[in-house]
C-alpha cells in the first residue's frame, strides 16, 4: 500500500511539475530553435555536403555551449527584470549602452534581410513569387504581435518551432547508416583530409551560427516580458536545456540528410540543397524547403522583436506584447518598420544581397564579444544578482566558452573580410 501511495504521490508531483513547465516553457525553446535560422540551415547543409557525418560530434559540443550562454540570460532577466540593452545602459553607462543598442539594431536588421532572403528562396522552389512571400510573411508577423498577449504569441511561435522538426522525417527518408551516425556523433575526429582551411571556415561558421548576439537580447527581454520570477529560474533553465537539445538535433538531422544524399557537392545555400534534393526525392526537397522557410520565419519573428524590445527598454516606451497598438505605438511602429524595410530590400532588383549576407558576419563580431563580456560581468554583480550570481565553476565554464566563441567568431568575421587570410596551407 505504501509503495502505491508513494508512486501516486510521485506521479502527481511529476504531473504538476510538467504542467508548470508547459506554462513557463517558451523563451528557451523558441530562441534555441530560431537559432537554426536561414543562415544556420545553409551552414549545416554546406557542412553535411562537404564532410558528410564527420562533424556531427562538433554539433554535440555546441549544444551545451549554447545552453551555458543562454542560461545566463534567464537568471539575469528573472532577477533584474531588465532586458539586456537596458541592463548594459544601467550598469556600464551610456557609451557602452548606445554602442550595444545601435550595433544590435544594425546587426538585427541585416540578419532580418537574410531571413527574408531564405524565406523567398524557399518559397521560390514552390513557384511562389518573392513579393507574395514577403507580403504574406509581413501580415502573419503583424497579426502575431497585434493580438495583444505575449502568451498567445509564444504558443504560436512554438507551433512554428514544431514545423522545424520536419528535418527528422526527412532524415529517415534517406536511410542513413545509424551506426555511422552514432559513431560520428560521439567520437571527436578530423574528417578525411585533415585540418584544412575549408574545415576551419566551416567550424567557425557553425560556431557563428550557434551563438548570435540577438539571442542574448531576445531571451532576456522575453523572460522579462513573460514576467518570470526568481522562483521560475529552474524551469527557465530546463526550457533552455530542452531548446538546446532540439537545436542540435535539428542541425544534426540537416547534416544527416545532406551528408547522405549530397556528399561531395559544393552547396552554397540551403535553397540550392533543397533543389538538388528535389531531384533525388521530391518529398525530401519539399521537406528541406519547408524547413528553410520555417527557419527564416522563426528567425525573423525573434530578431524583429529583439530590436523592438531593446529600443523600448532604453527609450522608456511601453514595450510588451501584452500591450495593444494604442498603449505601445512606438514599440509596434519600430517592429513594423524593421520588417517592412527588410522585406522591401529583398524585393529590390539588383540589391546587394550577397554583400549583405557577408556583412552580417562582420557586424555581428563587433557586437557579440561586447554582449557576452557584459553578460558575464553582470552575472558576477552580487549587488543585483544576490544568490543567483555566477559561482566559481560557472565562471570557469562561461569564461572559457565566451573566450572560445569570441576567438572563433572573430576569426570567422575577419576571414569574411579577407577571404585569403586563412588560405595557403
Amino acid at each position, binding site marked *: 500500500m505504501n509503495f502505491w501511495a508513494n508512486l501516486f504521490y510521485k506521479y502527481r508531483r511529476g504531473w504538476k511539475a510538467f504542467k508548470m513547465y508547459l506554462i513557463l516553457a517558451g523563451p528557451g525553446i523558441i530562441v534555441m530553435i530560431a537559432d537554426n535560422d536561414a543562415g544556420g540551415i545553409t551552414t549545416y547543409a554546406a557542412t553535411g555536403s562537404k564532410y558528410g557525418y564527420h562533424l556531427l560530434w562538433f554539433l554535440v559540443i555546441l549544444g551545451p555551449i549554447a545552453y551555458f550562454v543562454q542560461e545566463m540570460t534567464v537568471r539575469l532577466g528573472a532577477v533584474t527584470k531588465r532586458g539586456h540593452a537596458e541592463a548594459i*545602459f544601467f550598469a*556600464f553607462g551610456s557609451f*557602452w*549602452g548606445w554602442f550595444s543598442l545601435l550595433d544590435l539594431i544594425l546587426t538585427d536588421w541585416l540578419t532580418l534581410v537574410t531571413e527574408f532572403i531564405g524565406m523567398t528562396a524557399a518559397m521560390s522552389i514552390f513557384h511562389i513569387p518573392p513579393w507574395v512571400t514577403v507580403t504574406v510573411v509581413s501580415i502573419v508577423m503583424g497579426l502575431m504581435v497585434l493580438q495583444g498577449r505575449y502568451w498567445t504569441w509564444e504558443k504560436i511561435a512554438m507551433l512554428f518551432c514544431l514545423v522545424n522538426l520536419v528535418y527528422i522525417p526527412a532524415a529517415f527518408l534517406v536511410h542513413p547508416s545509424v551506426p555511422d551516425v552514432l559513431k560520428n556523433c560521439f567520437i571527436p575526429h578530423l574528417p578525411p583530409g585533415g585540418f584544412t582551411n575549408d574545415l576551419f571556415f566551416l567550424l567557425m561558421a557553425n560556431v557563428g551560427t550557434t551563438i548570435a548576439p540577438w539571442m542574448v537580447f531576445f531571451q532576456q527581454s522575453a523572460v522579462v516580458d513573460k514576467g518570470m520570477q526568481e522562483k521560475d529560474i529552474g524551469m527557465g533553465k530546463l526550457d533552455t536545456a530542452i531548446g538546446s537539445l532540439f537545436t542540435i538535433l535539428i542541425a544534426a538531422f540537416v547534416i544527416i540528410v545532406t551528408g547522405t544524399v549530397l556528399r561531395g557537392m559544393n552547396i552554397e545555400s540551403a535553397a540550392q540543397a533543397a533543389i538538388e534534393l528535389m531531384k533525388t526525392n521530391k518529398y525530401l526537397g519539399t521537406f528541406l524547403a519547408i524547413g528553410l522557410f520555417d527557419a527564416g520565419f522563426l528567425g525573423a519573428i525573434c530578431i524583429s522583436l529583439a530590436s523592438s524590445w531593446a529600443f523600448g527598454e532604453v*527609450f522608456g516606451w511601453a514595450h510588451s506584447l501584452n500591450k495593444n497598438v494604442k498603449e505601445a505605438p512606438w514599440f509596434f511602429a519600430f517592429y513594423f518598420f524593421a520588417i517592412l524595410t527588410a522585406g522591401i530590400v529583398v524585393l529590390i532588383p539588383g540589391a546587394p544581397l550577397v554583400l549583405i549576407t557577408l556583412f552580417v558576419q562582420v557586424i555581428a563580431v563587433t557586437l557579440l*564579444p561586447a554582449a557576452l563580456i557584459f553578460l558575464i*560581468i553582470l552575472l558576477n554583480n552580487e549587488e543585483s544578482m544576490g544568490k543567483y550570481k555566477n559561482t566559481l565553476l560557472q565562471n570557469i565554464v562561461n569564461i572559457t566558452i565566451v573566450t572560445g566563441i569570441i576567438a572563433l567568431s572573430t576569426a570567422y568575421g575577419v576571414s569574411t*573580410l579577407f577571404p585569403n587570410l586563412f588560405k595557403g596551407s
Partner: protein
Amino acid sequence: MGSFLYEVFVKGIKKFFTDTFTQIREINEKYAVPQIKTNAWTNFALIMLRAYLVVLILLLVYKFITLLK
C-alpha cells in the same frame, strides 16, 4: 496647400527630431554614471574590449580603403 504641407510634414518632422534629441539627452543624463561596481578584472575586460573594437574598426577601414583602390 503649400502651407498645409509645411504644417504637417516639415513641422512634424522637426518635432519628431526635436523630441528624439530631447529623449536621447534624457537617456544620457539618466545613464551618465555606470552603476556597476568595478574591480581590476572588470576594468581589464572593458579595456580589452575597447582595444578589440578599435582593431576591428581599423580592419574595416583598411578593407574599405583597399576596396576603393
